[in-house]
C-alpha cells in the first residue's frame, strides 16, 4: 500500500493527522507528511477514511506494485 500526498492540493488542516496521527503529520511547511512509508497494512481502513475525508482530495492510495 502506497499513499501519495499531492503538495499542490494539501492545505494542511490535518484531517488526516486527526484520524491517524501515527501515519500523517502536518509539518512546518504546512503540508502533510508520512510518518511511516509505506504504512502498515493493518491501518488500511483508517487510511482509506483519510483519503475519503481529505477535503482537498490531496491523498491518493495506490497498491504497491508487486516486487
Amino acid at each position: 500500500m502506497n499513499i501519495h500526498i499531492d503538495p499542490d492540493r494539501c492545505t494542511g488542516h490535518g484531517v488526516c493527522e486527526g484520524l491517524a496521527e501515527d501515519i500523517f503529520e502536518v509539518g512546518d511547511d504546512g503540508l502533510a507528511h508520512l510518518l511511516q512509508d509505506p504504512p502498515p497494512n493493518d491501518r488500511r481502513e483508517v487510511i482509506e477514511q483519510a483519503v475519503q475525508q481529505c477535503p482537498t482530495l490531496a491523498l491518493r492510495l495506490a497498491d504497491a506494485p508487486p516486487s
Partner: protein
Amino acid sequence: MIVGASLAGVRAARAARHAGHTGTIILIGAEEHLPYDRPPLSKTFLTHSSDHPAAHEPDEQAHPPAPAVLMAEDELRDDLGVDLRLGVTATGLDTDSRELLLHDQQRLPYDRLIIATGATARRWPTTTHLAGLHYLRTLDDARALRAALARTTNLVIIGAGFIGSEVAATATQHGIHATIVETQDTPLAHAVGQTAGTALARLHTQAGTTLKCGVQVTDFSGTGHIEQVHLSDGSVLPADTVLVGIGAVPTTGWLTDSGVALDDGVACDPYLATSAPGVYAAGDLARFPHPRREGTLRLEHWTAAAEQGAHAARNAITTAAPTRYEPVPYVWSDWYSHRIQIIGDPHTDQPSTLIGDPDTGQFTVLYRHNNHITAALAVNQPRAIAKLRRLITQKAPWADALTQTTTLNPPATPPAGSRTESRAT
C-alpha cells in the same frame, strides 16, 4: 440534478458517482466558465506572474489569465459522466411537480435536487455613476480587478474581512498603496473576537497597509472615475480603485415562492435536506442546526462547501439511513507571507487567550467555552492546527489545550495562568 457549478456542486456530482449513482447527473451553472476555484482569486491570481500586475497588460485583453479549474472538463464529463450545462441560469423551482425552471422557460424534471448556488458579493448600498468600484466574487470580477490594479497607485478597500485583507496584502506586496476602511473598531472582531482581531490588524500595519477603523465611507468623488473616497471623520483618501469587501449574501433569490424554506440562506435539517421533498442544499448558502450549540450555522468557507457538497449528495441518493453533517469548521487565509488558520467555533463572547507575540508574526489564539477548548486561530503555526483539531474534536479540557499550544509555540514570556514548558532539544 445540481444547481450551481462551483465547489459544492462539483463535489456533489463527484460524490454521487462515487457513492454508486448510475443515473443522470445534470450540473447547471450560470457562469460560462468551467468550474473554477475561488480562493486564488484574491491571492496569486491578482498578480499571477511574479512581477507587477501591469506586466503584459495588452496581452490580457486577448488572453485573459486562466483560473485554477476544480476538475478537468474531460474528467467531469467523461469519467464522471456529468451533463454539464454552463451559462444556464435557474430562475425558479416547482417543488410540487419537481421541476427546475430555467431562464429560457425550459422546465427540467428532477428526482433529487441539490441547491448549490453559493453567495454573491454584497453590493454597496448607494449607487455611483463613477467608474472604479469593484467587487470580488467571480472570475470576471477578479479579471476586472486585476486589470484595474495594474493602473492603480492608491487602492481603497472597504471592509477588513478576509477578502479585503487578502487583496490589501496582495496589493501592498506589489507596491500599491492600500488603505482598508473598516466600520468596526477591531477588524474581524465579530468572527474571531477582540484579541485575535487586534493581533491580525498588526499584520497589516506591520506590512505597510493603512488600516482605518471605526470610520465609514460616505461618498466617492471624481470626474468619470473615482478619484477620492470620503470618510465619516471628514478625511478624504485619494483612490484610483475601490474594492467593496463587505461580505456575501446567499444566492437564494431564485427560490422565492418555491416552497423551499429560506432563513438567511436555505434552511436545512442536520442531513442537509431542505423543507421540500428530495431537495438538499450545500455550500455557502446552506444553513443547518449547529452540532455543538444552540441555533443554526451557515459557513462561507471552502472546506465546508467541499464537504457539504459531498455530504448532501450521499444523503440525497442513499437508500440507507442518511448521516448528519457535524463539521469542525476550518478556514484558512493568506495575508502577506502569513498563513492564518482557524479551526472550530470561536466563542467570541468569552475571553480568548493569546499565546505568542503578534509582532513576530507567529501566534495562536485559543477560544474556550466554560472549561473546554472550542476553537483556535493560528498564524504561521502549521504544525499546531492538526493537533488543535484533535483537542477541539475531543472537547479537551482548556488546561490541556493551553499546555499543548505553549509547548508548540514557546512564548518569550509565558501568559499568565499557563505553565511554562521546557522544550526538549
